């Protein structure tokens, strides 16, 4: 017995693995799978496409450009750069109810928040409330890390410095009376940004934490005074700041400004009537051929309005069905796997 073993000591093991006999599933592109598969996928796509399209159509969107680059537009006077603290107002009329909940966005075009150097120009540690980075911001913030007198800028970097600073108030005129539409600015940023990623230093009052630092060059007020009405909405956890800091993927983007507070007359959304938006026009975009707009939109289960997805599903679904017919014809002619 022992001898026999030693005689075949080099015999390879007889396992399915070493002998490459592992049981395996060997799918094959047979007509029986491919053609019905295409039909099924096509039908499913058409179904999804219809649902998406219908949903998307039901979403109301109202876009109002207020860049003011054409002479007739209400903000054209403000867009001529030098003017500071310029005010202008925009009117629009709703003939039917704008179904709630209604979201109030501002939109920018040709704005490269996704530029690499722009995106890198911030200091996560500083924004996390780490005081040691208040005095020495990361070099990635350059040139917005120190001001001309070598004082550290907090929050540093291009993104923070370029924060959108137009403000809007919305009024509803009905039966001659003008009502301020209540806007809700709470919780418009991501929960994780508000609770995890951005933090104020645990110094009270918050102002003290910013001793020895300066506000970003473009800012009118320092970070700890961003929201005079709500002391807890200041510093790095200011909702508008958070929304701005979540930089956009594409050069045309919109960001959430406010929610229409669903209370009183606005429980169902924006009722029909005449509306006026008063704009504090601060943010210059004409210099780089940018555009600014205001967007009112409601949402559905599929998010905001996007007709592309529905149409794409419909088109591809139909193509699948067409393709399956083509394949059926080809198969009927050649019948490959049956052939010997």
């Amino acid at each position, binding site marked *: 017995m022992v001898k026999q073993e030693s005689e*075949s000591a*080099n*015999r*390879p*093991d007889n396992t399915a693995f*070493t*002998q*490459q*006999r*592992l*049981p*395996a*599933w*060997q*799918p*094959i*592109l*047979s007509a029986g799978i*491919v053609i019905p598969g295409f039909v099924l996928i096509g039908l499913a796509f058409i179904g*999804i496409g219809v649902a998406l399209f219908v949903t998307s159509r039901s979403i109301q969107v109202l876009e109002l450009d207020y860049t003011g680059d054409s002479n007739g537009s209400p903000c054209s006077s403000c867009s001529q750069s030098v003017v500071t603290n310029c005010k202008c107002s925009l009117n629009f009329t709703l003939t039917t109810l704008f179904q709630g*909940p209604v979201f109030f*966005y501002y939109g920018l075009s*040709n704005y*490269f928040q996704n*530029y*690499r150097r*722009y*995106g890198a*120009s911030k200091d*996560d*540690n500083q924004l996390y409330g780490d005081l040691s980075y208040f005095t020495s911001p990361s070099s990635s913030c*350059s*040139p917005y890390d120190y001001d001309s007198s070598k004082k550290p800028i907090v929050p540093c970097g*291009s993104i923070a410095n*370029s924060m959108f600073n137009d403000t809007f108030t919305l009024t509803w005129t009905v039966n001659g009376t003008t009502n301020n539409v209540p806007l809700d600015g709470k919780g418009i*940023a991501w929960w*994780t940004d508000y609770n*995890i*990623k951005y933090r104020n230093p645990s110094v009270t009052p918050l102002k003290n934490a910013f001793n020895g630092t300066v506000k970003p060059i473009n800012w009118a007020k320092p970070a700890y005074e961003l929201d005079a009405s709500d002391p807890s909405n200041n510093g790095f956890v200011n909702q508008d700041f958070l*929304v701005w800091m*979540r930089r*956009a*993927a*594409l*050069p*045309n983007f*919109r960001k959430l400004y406010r929610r229409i507070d669903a209370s009183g007359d606005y429980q169902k959304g924006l009722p029909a009537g005449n509306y006026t938006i008063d704009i504090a026009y601060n943010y*210059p975009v004409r210099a*780089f051929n940018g555009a600014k707009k205001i967007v009112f939109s409601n949402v559905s289960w*599929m*998010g905001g309005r996007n007709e*592309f*997805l529905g149409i*794409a*599903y419909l088109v591809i679904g139909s193509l699948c069905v067409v*393709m399956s017919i083509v*394949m059926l014809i080809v198969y009927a*002619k050649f019948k*490959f*796997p049956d052939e010997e």
Partner: protein
Amino acid sequence: RANDRAFNLSHGYANNAIRTSKYNIFTFLPLNLFEQFRRLANAYFLFLLILQLIPQISSLSWFTTAVPLVFVLSISAVKDANDDINRHKCDRQVNNRKVDVLMDGQLKNEKWMNVQVGDIVKLENNEFVTADLLLLSSSEPLNLVYVETAELDGETNLKVKQALTATGELGDNIEALAAFNGEVRCEPPNNRLDKFKGTLTMNDDIYALDNDKMLLRGCTLRNTEWCFGLVIFGGPDTKLMQNSGKSVFKRTSIDHLMNILVLCIFGFLGFMCAIMAILNAFWEASEGSLFTVFLPREAGIDAHLSSFLTFWSYVIVLNTVVPISLYVSMEVIRLGNSFFINWDRKMYYPKNDTPAQARTTTLSEELGQIKYIFSDKTGTLTQNIMTFNKCSINGKAYGDLYDFSGQRVEITERVDFSWNNLADPKFSFHDHSLVEMVRSGNPETQEFFRLLSLCHTVMPEEKKEGELNYQAQSPDEGALVTAARNFGFVFRSRTPETITVIEMGKQVLYELLAVLDFNNVRKRMSVIVRGPEGKLTLYCKGADTIILERLDPSCNKLMKLTTNHLNEYAGDGLRTLALAYKDLDESYMKDWTQRHHEASIAMEEREEKLDELYEEIEKDMMLLGATAVEDKLQDGVPQTIEQLAKADIKIWVLTGDKQETAENIGYSCNMLREEMKDVFFVSANTAFALEKNLRLELLRTACMCQTVICCRVTPLQKAQVVQLVKKYKQAVTLAIGDGANDVSMIKAAHIGVGISGQEGMQAVLSSDFCFAQFRYLQRLLLVHGRWSYIRMCKFLGYFFYKNFTFTLMHFWYAFFCGFSAQTVYDEWFITFYNTIYTALPVLGLSLFEQDVNDRWSLQHPQLYTPGQKNQYFNKKAFVRCVMHSCYSSLILFFIPWASMHDTVRDDGKDIADYQSFALLAQTCLLIVVFAQLFLDTYYWTAINQLFVWASIAVYFAITFTMYSSGMFLIFTSAFPFTGTARNSLNQPNVWLTIFLSSLLCVLPVVAFRFILIQLRPTINDEVRAKARKEALPAPAPRRTLKKRITRRSGYAFSHSQGYGALVMSQKFLLKGHMRRLALFDHRDSPMVQNQPQHYRTITEESESQSP
């Protein structure tokens, strides 16, 4: 200077320790890194890493390159370290071998490594020679020493070395040796095995030294009890070590293609980066300069410089088109396939306990592309075992057995030779009637065997009483003498003048008067003997055509009968010989002897005169009969050759044998068939034909033939033929052989296969793959080779697809981000994409893939042809693959772009932000890449499934972990994507986008492939479809080999000239018994560690024949 260590040490000669390892513990890291960075790919990534450290350029964090680079480097380093540890072990084993060294007047057992130049060492029988030694004295007469040099030059015969008489007198007298104070002056160490020049100064006498007095390291002492030698060169200075140069790396055609492709990709990368740089310049001029309100330029950087920096930034971002893990993955795949070859039980030969072995692990896919096979004959196609199979005596045929129905019986009881106590127990014969005939004393039969026992040049060796061993110069002859021995005519011993034969138990002494030696022209040999009764007889055996011409007319009738038998034997592929005798009368013999003597001392035209004399006496002979010796083919050779031919592989047999032998084997192994009508013969001198102007002609002629057999080729010519085909046909070649004479050919071919047979280890040691039987070749090629090739091609195609798709997304994104080298994905995703997320599934595909299983592969050898034509992966396929990636990346970028650019979450919050978009894009990409893998994989084992699903799971696990709050709290700035996963992956429109883009990438491929299968099904598709219907292929019908009708010219012995004279000479028999001349089995040898790259070049006239 002998016996003077202090003096010798002062000259700083190398001691006998050898070191083949490359590194030690301290030098490993720097040296190994240096080695690795010499590879272009690694250097490229080091360069990238440096680029990334420049802040103005760095578009990606350093870890995206550093992590994969470290990963790749460490894998290679581990492999190198392992190899080097093995070399260390081997060195240590060799260095620690013991040898007797003469020190301070007595012999001490020392380790090899401690032997110094000038020491005197004592070697014993079968020991390896320690270093290059000057032979001083030996146990044998005339100070002869027998050495075997197989490990040096592959020659298996023994060589004689002789010491100087002056030193030989020292004998084994320790005191005399200790007092020996000779001084040797010689040439510096070199690698010429056949040359040595030096002088020995001893007691004021100067003796010339040459190669005959040297024992080289690597030789083995044989048949010599002991000898003493003076160490001349030690360790690294020895000729063996000087010869073990760097072995040539063989690279596969895929490797060459890869080099070209990688260069193309570099060009492509440069092109893309240039486009980006130019567009960036435009963008900076038109948009960027205006956007400086919010994004001021860095000091001193204007649009032009920015565009220049953008170029380098994009080099970093797009670097993944040159995949870093490509080379490592290829190595891993080849290694895996090599292991599968090692593990294959169907290539394991139980008789020798030899599994197949892939000695080179970097060539596996080339096995699937072989177009030409160059095969040795002896030992490769044949077993090199001759068996006495049949004979015809006096018109009666023996050897075939028929049962009652007239069918030939294959296996019957062996004839019992126990009545003959000198019989060779290994001999087997199945026809009882012949034994009865001999024992009954039939005179013709007895004469027949008497002839066999007398007419030969075999040397007997009788170590113990009754234990005879024959040393035959050719195996045919050995078989015949052994047959005679078993039938009661035992050739016992010979002296130059006599031959002793035990005839049916009686000792009979024959006087040997003359040996009429064999040569190529005569194709026969004769002996003239005087029997005990004083009768003079000439016994002759030779090629049937020759003998039959020289017969006495009285045996015409017998001749006819015998000719019929000969035809029959030839039809069975046996080697035939005709036997004849002639009685001579005393007076004629006296006269003839006189003339023979005169002729043999004639100064002019000696050979012609001798030939004339031989011709004169070898006529009017009486036919005795004929023998048929089977040159046993290895098992399954004809079937294998047939299979390989079906796979459109051309087989050329290159053999040193004569034309008839080669031709005969060609027939018996099915390479030549009767129905080959357009067979034509070209007899030429290969050496001549290999000259420049005739090369192409030879090649063209040879390639028109279905089968090519080159005979009488020397090892060098074998290599030349291989190189010729390699060079002009651009085809992948494989050489298979078993002997030292095949080494050159094995090294020259793309792939060398060694048969670990009887002819020693030389071929195996220089081969890339080795196994025990020729028939395993079909499995190696048709199964393993094909699979390896398919796997490698699928791997490459898929790998390029996945990396191009991955990279091109950055390119499309550039148009939306101001050409700022912003990446589409999270940096961590870039880091992990090749190393973690997709590494295992790709390996799964490329290790386990099989289109059809091994049985179907063997059933349909045609499946092999796409590999030969390089159809699965070539430049075209690469371009297709790039186009496909372009399509996929366009879909993968623009579908998410279109569906995300203006949308929001279902709670109105942001989702079109950069981080969500990155996550969406990378998730789409990964799913598409896996879906493509799904389409490419034909063979889904549990492991593949596990790899794919686990990788997807790992992706989500890692993503959610990296984007979790916890990770951000621990490493604040390392993972800035906090919360992205949970905020976007819970949105239905995100998933709908993923679903849409995945299907949009996959469905066209499915449709295209389906239609392609319908319109133009490949052989693979057909076999796959068939395999699906029937679980297992029907067993191949057992082909019975067609019997040959025409008679092939008979057989001369595979003999060379000159042995006749040798057996008659005194000198040869000096030692009383013959030394073994021919084959030796090889034991453990130092060759395993050191392979001398040397072979003997034989410049010998040769002829080539191409049927």
